[in-house]
């Protein structure tokens, strides 16, 4: 975080919130007030006083290729890891499975078939997504294949006995952090293209915390007693896409079929003429 930019943003926001005009906003805040606000950064809030997460967000990392430190491979951008402590605590058999997944990743990755990516992978794919917020529901709409998530924040309980590709998400506020329990996963999604995987016993606790108006910390605690020896954590910032006014669409299956010619289209009605 660049301090000067941060202070400006805080001052601007404070001015807007107090109803002051743009002239007042340019007046530097007094040092004492500055320090106080820096300690508890002002974030946009909803009418109900909750942090307002609404907007278009995107990661800037290569976690979708591999959650861990990795050099570039064909189709995989290089990147620093997002796993706390660096290691994913696989049980021995699971570690072998992961290694096998990695070798077969071009075809074994569920995304090769455009399957739903699951959570948390959808959150750090290299595509923007839009968070919408009402007092009782959070929705996320993703550019990637029109995927969406609905997170009830109304005290409701997960479905019983139903598995979902995208899991079952239930949210609650822990102070200024949105905490989402994600359960009811199937065992067919991966965490990344490198073959990091889980079973249907996966349980996620996601934590969304606004660090400032344009930065959202995304942290996930990952538990799966069939695959890992202990819970482990990933965390990364999501950045507000201020230049974007809309999330468009990248439809995986449509692009794939177009690329391989599987779908012979009717030329009369497909695609506008140039």
């Amino acid at each position, binding site marked *: 975080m660049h301090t000067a930019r941060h202070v400006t943003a805080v001052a601007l926001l404070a001015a807007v919130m107090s109803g002051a005009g743009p002239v007042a906003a340019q007046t530097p805040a007094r040092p004492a007030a500055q320090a106080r606000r820096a300690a508890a950064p002002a974030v946009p809030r909803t009418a109900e006083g909750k942090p307002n997460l609404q907007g278009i967000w995107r990661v800037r990392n290569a976690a979708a290729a591999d959650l861990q430190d990795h050099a570039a491979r064909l189709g995989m951008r290089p990147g620093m890891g997002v796993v706390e402590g660096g290691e994913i605590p696989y049980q021995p058999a699971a570690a072998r499975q992961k290694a096998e997944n990695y070798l077969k990743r071009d075809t074994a990755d569920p995304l090769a078939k455009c399957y739903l990516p699951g959570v948390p992978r959808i959150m750090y794919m290299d595509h923007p997504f839009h968070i919408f917020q009402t007092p009782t529901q959070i929705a996320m*709409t993703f550019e990637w294949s029109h995927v969406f998530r609905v997170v009830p924040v109304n005290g409701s309980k997960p479905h019983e006995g139903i598995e979902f590709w995208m899991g079952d998400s239930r949210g609650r506020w822990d102070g200024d952090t949105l905490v989402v329990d994600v359960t009811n996963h199937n065992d067919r999604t991966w965490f990344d293209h490198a073959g990091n995987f889980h079973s249907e016993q996966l349980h996620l606790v996601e934590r969304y915390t606004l660090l400032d108006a344009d930065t959202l910390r995304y942290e996930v605690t990952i538990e799966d007693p069939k695959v890992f020896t202990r819970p482990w954590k990933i965390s990364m910032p999501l950045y507000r896409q201020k230049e974007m006014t809309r999330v468009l669409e990248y439809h995986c299956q449509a692009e794939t079929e177009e690329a391989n010619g599987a779908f012979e289209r009717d030329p009369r009605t497909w695609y506008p003429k140039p």
Partner: protein
Amino acid sequence: MTPADAPRRSAITTRRALVHGLALAALVGLPPVVAPRSGPAILAPTLVHAQGAGAPAAARQAAPPPIRRMPDGKPDLSGVFQAAAPGSNQGLEPHEAVPNTPGGRGYIVDPPDGRLPYQPWARAENDARSKPERGYDDPTAHCFPAGVPRSFYVPSPFQILQPPGYVLFLYERMWWRSVPLDGRPHIPDAIRLWQGDSVGRWDGDTLVVDTANLNGRAWLDELGGVVTHAARVVERLTATDGDTIRYEATVTDPNVFTRPWTLRMDLRRMSTELLEVACLEDDQDLQHLKDVRDEARRKQQQP
């Protein structure tokens, strides 16, 4: 139905398999239900959902609940709904049931004859697409989005949310539309999308959604209703009581029609949450449709 069946049950509703006669035996373990998710039967307690069965049907019939409103006084359309429009996904014009294809009473209110005002080429094109061997060409058979207006009557439930500045449509078959209400213009003409680009406004108590930038690939229904990239769709959503939204869509497409036309159907509130349709999961239907097409082609090529 056990809870564990539910996602697979919803997945099967995405299939045109029933229309063109895929043997249900190939879908062992899947309950043969499509109808319960379309039409008034949606309130029947056959669905398994966390929030229970909701208000008793008798209470609903006694007095429809009043229109819900947002704090700012606008109608509150939020909730889970499904079109009460049996057979609409198999044709918006009146049509009789044939084996494996539900009939429909017709949903076109303008022109008054209830028929799509096709130009001759487009009527011929629709007829050609309605043949079983063209089932493979229905984009939804490939798990592509259904476009506008078909997304509302595929038939599957959808959820409406009204976050500040937007109306959001989340369709259970895993595609969505977001409708900004801030008066912004459409995106540049060269960007063409399956779900188009929608902008909205309130006209009194009616939400008016204008959609452009469609990519022209979607079909109006499973039997090949024709629209092109030139289509403009204006949808009007009006709450008529707390559990019902009247849905109208006016389609203008000078490539296809001799005049604009309008469909109308009711959207009924469901006392459930959305599940998830994973269309591509174990998709055997597309291969079946391809087989039907390839068989027809072989016959055509034989002298």
